[in-house]
């Protein structure tokens, strides 16, 4: 049974991984045909992967309703939200536009999904401002450098800030926009590139572990 449960999946992983890796160095039509086939397959397999998230969301809220945990009533709205998208989709057969006018699906996107999804993340703007006032402290020389860079960015990106800079420091003949440009194209590149190197090797090592079956956490417990 371990053969079917463990060895064969690991073998599939190794074979697929090795062939896909080789395809980068092997330009032959055979390798291209292989890639074409597997790309189409991956495309379809992955088309089902989001169901994992969908089902686990449904299960967890179903359990909340069943067990009547505090606040279970809100869980019903998860299903309502789902139906608000899916029912119009089937009525309009996946079309958002009917000629030049909206279908019910287009309506649901524009007025429900757009409003919800857009607003959820814009809330953070408020927290940035309050955190900026109440928590951001210049405690060390490093933090001071961070702040100076941040302030230059905040001033230099908007016209009002640029005007303020010109008013206060115009005599230096240095445009704040030029400093922003230099900051973004010199020190930022150095800092970011330094982080990238570690991430790149880390990603390669993780990929090697997956191909050789050393890393198998994604397979779940035995």
């Amino acid at each position, binding site marked *: 049974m371990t053969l079917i449960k463990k060895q064969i999946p690991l073998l599939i992983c190794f074979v697929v991984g090795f062939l896909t*890796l080789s395809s*980068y*160095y*092997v*330009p*032959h*039509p*055979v*390798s*291209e*045909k292989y890639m074409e086939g597997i790309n189409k397959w991956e495309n379809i397999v992955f088309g089902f992967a989001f169901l994992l998230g969908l089902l686990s969301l449904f299960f*967890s809220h179903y359990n909340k309703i069943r067990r009547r945990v505090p606040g279970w009533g809100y869980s019903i709205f998860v299903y309502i939200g789902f139906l608000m998208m899916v029912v119009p989709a089937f009525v309009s057969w996946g079309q958002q536009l009917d000629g030049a006018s909206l279908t019910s699906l287009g309506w649901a996107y524009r007025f429900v999904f757009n409003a919800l999804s857009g607003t*959820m*993340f814009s*809330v*953070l703007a408020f*927290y*940035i401002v*309050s*955190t900026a006032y*109440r*928590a*951001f*402290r210049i*405690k060390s020389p*490093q*933090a001071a450098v*961070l*702040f100076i860079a*941040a302030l230059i960015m905040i001033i230099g990106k908007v016209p009002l800030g640029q005007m303020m800079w010109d008013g206060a420091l115009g005599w230096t003949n240095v445009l704040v926009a030029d400093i922003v440009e230099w900051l973004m194209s010199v020190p930022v590149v150095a800092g970011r590139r330094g*982080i990238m*190197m*570690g*991430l*790149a*090797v*880390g990603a*390669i*090592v*993780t990929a*090697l*572990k997956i191909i050789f079956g*050393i*890393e198998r*956490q*994604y397979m779940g417990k035995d």
Partner: protein
Amino acid sequence: MKKIPLFLPFLFLTALSSAAKPPAVLPPLTGFTAADMPGDAGGAALLRWDSPGSAAAGAVIEVYVSDPAKPAWVKLADFKAEAKSESDFNRPFWAWSPAAGRNAVRLDTSAVFGRLDKPQELDFKLRMVRGAASAETEPVRTVIKGNWFNAARLNNFLLMLAITIGFFWTVSHARRKGLFIRRIAGLDAIDEAIGRATEMGRPIFYSTGIGQMSLVPTIASTSILGEVARKVAQYDTQLKVPHFDPIVMTVCKEVVKQSYLEMERPDSYRDDINFFVSNDQFSYAASVDGMIHREKPAACFFIGHFMAESLLLAEVGATTGAIQIAGTEQESQLPFFFTSCDYTLIGEELYAAGAYLSKEPMLLSTLKVQDFGKAFVMVSVVAGSILLAAGAWFGWQPLIKVVEQLFKAY
């Protein structure tokens, strides 16, 4: 080399005359060869010929192709006669040796004949045209086919091999002997934070973030939690670990329990040290915020995978005056942690801290390979810039080309 003195007077003449009118007679096209384009999937040919030089200024070269099975010449491409020098060809020196005074072009035949999976025999010829004058080469026959190795990607291939070998070496080495990892400065701050909490008699909050158990930052975070729990057990302080993910919570319960056992304090261990809050990002942040606000902990740890909630968590800790130690791999959240926390573990530093504490061979070896990678980069950058600068200073163009081509993609 011999051609140059022959050409010089000729060049001079054309320079004089071209202003008025180019010579009516075109030089002949010589040295024409056709071959399969190396390192591709087929469907392309590599044509090379002697550069016609400035005598052909203003002329156009046309390429014709024909299938010997059904002979009929089809025009495949045309370009300026002066263009297409071999040294401009986008292939590195180890897969391409350009000759001076030769031209080369890669031509796609699939546009005419479609892409065949099997080798394909084709005839090629060149024709140079300027006004009424023209010159033509003899047809050359060659076989176009797919190749089994793209030599231009050799630099990538060798590096891939080196990393693979390095990885397996470190894995086996880590298993046998363990590997050295330097002390991480941020871990010293843990002692200070716990000492302060003990003095003040206030609790410590530890959040592992919103990552799943499979994420590396979460794994590192549980190792650090183990260390924190050991210290907490030792000083008999209060620890609270609010959770976002039930699986992470189960793992953390084991970790904390183990730490208390190691410090021989199983009696002080309580099962509610780890507790579940919510698996919704903002609800989690709001509830933890509320708790921190009410209980005013002496120290807060935010270590693991954090997204937008970092802002909300770090703010409330800072306003209640707790010592805050944070660590995440999320670059977009690091600025917020850095400005509102007392100590921040940046990206890989977090992984290193986790590996340092856990002594797990797999984690250690990953870290080690990353260090090898970084060492390679440092050496390459230093050596590469010195060589390039030297090449530029002394005008050694070949040296510049060699160094630049080593670090390119093909």
